[in-house]
């Protein structure tokens, strides 16, 4: 009684290509175009290749716009780039880690004192922004884009690495004005979240395949080192994740 529809996987890109939805030029207020994302370069292959292992966790819980997510990804990759040592932030899934964290209590500062009044503090009194982290990230990421548009007349994700660094540097040096938070405070959060995403347990969506740990020769969560602690030489171990404890 049921028809099996074969090859029914329609990714967004394929859909648009096949449906003629856009071809007719009827794009509602120029809106659908933006759904395709700013950067589909090279992603064609990944979706047509047979799925090796479905990484369902690699989808978005917090971000709503592809463009924001791509900007975030590009910025984290500059902070922690791919090199001879191994993968950078993108390949480690750091942007997914940050997305999931911003959707959670980290993003909402659930365990932090967020009552007013808010005043600017001295350099020794800690962050005093009334903004929650997810608000800081959203504002900061949009500002990265705005800044690269104004400095280089192009979107952040399309810039050369060095140009991206220049933009990021402006944030780190507080040469950009944000609302309710300093650009350097956003940058610090971005940097620390990038490192956390590179090196936290893969449970949280980053440190993919424990590749961050492998690069650092860190064995993750081991039960014991009682037999190795007195070893004179460096001991290389295959890392182990929290998942192994269940």
């Amino acid at each position, binding site marked *: 009684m049921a028809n099996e529809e074969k090859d029914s996987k329609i990714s967004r890109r394929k859909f648009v290509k096949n449906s003629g939805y856009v071809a007719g030029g009827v794009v509602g207020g120029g809106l659908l175009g933006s759904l395709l994302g700013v950067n589909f370069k090279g992603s064609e292959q990944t979706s047509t290749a047979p799925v090796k292992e479905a990484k369902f966790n690699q989808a978005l819980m917090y971000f709503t716009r592809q463009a924001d997510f791509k900007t975030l990804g590009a910025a984290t990759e*500059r*902070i*922690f*780039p791919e*090199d001879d*040592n191994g993968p*950078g932030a993108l390949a480690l899934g750091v942007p997914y880690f940050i997305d999931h964290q911003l959707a959670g209590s*980290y993003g909402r*500062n*659930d*365990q*932090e*004192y*967020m*009552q007013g*009044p808010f*005043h600017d*503090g*001295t*350099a*020794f*009194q*800690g*962050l*005093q922004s009334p903004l929650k982290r997810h608000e800081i990230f959203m504002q900061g990421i949009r500002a990265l884009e705005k800044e690269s548009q104004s400095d280089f007349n192009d979107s952040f994700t399309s810039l050369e690495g060095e140009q991206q660094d220049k933009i*990021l540097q402006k944030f*780190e040096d507080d040469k950009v004005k944000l609302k309710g938070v300093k650009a350097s405070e956003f940058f610090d959060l971005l*940097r620390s979240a*990038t*490192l*956390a995403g*590179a*090196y*936290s*347990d893969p*449970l*949280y969506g980053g440190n993919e395949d424990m590749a*961050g*740990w492998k*690069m*650092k*020769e*860190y*064995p*993750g*969560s*081991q*039960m*014991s*080192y*009682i037999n*190795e*602690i*007195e*070893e*004179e030489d*460096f*001991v290389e171990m295959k890392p182990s994740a*929290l998942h192994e*404890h269940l």
Partner: protein
Amino acid sequence: MAKKLDKVDAVTVGVGWTGGIIAAELAKEGLNVVGLERGGDRSTEDFQMIHDEYRYAVRYGLMQDTSKETITFRNKPDERALPMRRLGSFLPGEGVGGAGDHWNGHTWRFLPYDLEIKSQTDKKYGKDKLGEDYTIQDWGITYDELEPYFYKFEQTAGISGEENPMGAPRKHDYPTGPMKSSPILYRFKKATKNMKLHPFQLPSANLSEQYENPDGETINACQYCGFCERFGCEYGAKSSPNITVIPTAKKTGNFELRADSNVVEVLHEGGRATGVRYVDVKTGEEFVQPADVVILTSYVLNNTRLLLQSKLGKPYDPKTKEGVIGKNYCYQITAGATGFFEDEKFNSFMGAGSLGATVDDYNGDNFDHKDLDFIHGGSLSITQTGQRPIENNPVPKDTPKWGKDFKEKSLHYFNRSLSVGAQGASMPHRNNYLSLDENYKDAYGNPLLKLTYDFTDQDRNLHKYLSEQAADILKEMGADKVEAKEISEHYDIVPYQSTHNTGGVIMGDDPETSAVNNYSQMWDVDNLFVIGASAFAHNGGYNPTGTVGALAYRAAEGIIKFMDEDKQLVKANKDRQLV
């Protein structure tokens, strides 16, 4: 409308090390004790997923929830104090076991010099050594008097260690032998011996072997798994209240533990405490728990705040130097140096919170201060606590903070750097104190505690001195590049330094200058005991827990005595004696 409960013999506010010790000792004596803990119930079972650096070390899984309660902070009395909105500089615990669950396990005895610092300094260096803004005082007790209590705590916790040639004299060996000496520790010991210093294995509450304590509780042997500080021990190998004194107390049948119970007020009438008022933090219900004796055994900050909030004792005033509650808040000086090694790789990821080696040659008055512009000193140690990857990215100073170069170097040096750290003593200053904040409130509507604190000249001079010694040791150890730490311009509430906050309800022999006597009994309220590092008149060059434990055992003895005699246990004057 608070619900009034049946009266009990004793109620403790906070169930960490001090609350646990009191509960065990009192309950063993047949007294009925209620322990109120603001955080949740906790046991070793909760540590299944403990090897999670992000959850526990970065996101503070076991620590105080600052959305409910925090402190406000300023460097100087004339600045505006602002809330510490998230944890940073120090990490107060929360939950049954308190910070005793997530400590590293360094267990020291303060030096005999510490307890008589004022008289010894005056005698040796003259009255003007520090100047009168430094409010150093003797503690109202000597080392010899406190020695048995030190040992009692060490027995309960099963401390692993070896003789310290420069330390406080011991009457007994440590209950268990020292921890393994890893190659990193060995290298430190060798280098310091070459330098004519006196290294020894750091006394540890991560046990070197399995041990049964005098109460019949068993503590396991450490596995060197690298997750101690900020983590609970899944093996029950790190001594904590949860595997020692709390089960001991529970076994008597005389101890009732109530988690999620946040005390908001000490009730009192006519100079006598009548009980406490607390809120069930989950349901919001309010209760009054009457008791014959009220014992504050929460963290330094909360002990002080509860007294101020309940209008017990005279608040300290920095202008007049009068009053005692909030006085002599001290911290510690975290000096040291890092060495980078190009050709050698260490197993830095393994380790234990207290796996370390120390020299005490620059601690206390073990070296001559005549030509130095500070008093006291600090212990210098190398510890192999297990380097975890998110928070440990050691790079030489000129390295950028992010990008290709950062990545490269942080990966390279992750297993190729070692640090020698100092616990520098902290001397009280009239402008470093605790009081109540006028503007900010906690989730229960009570004022936050206000911390006014900055580093003093004494601190800066000491920091410099200790960091230089640490750098010398690393050079001797063969580091290719050594960087000594520098003290920040002002004390900064953001980067983690240590959770060795002390003072605020200090002990002494004179009610004019101290809040409690040497049994931690309040001078102003006979049936109120305030126990913890809040009683330290200054902070020494060691981690505080060993001394906290000793004072708690002495306080327990005092409370039991008080139950019979119902009076002030110590006569208040310079020629102190038991009443």
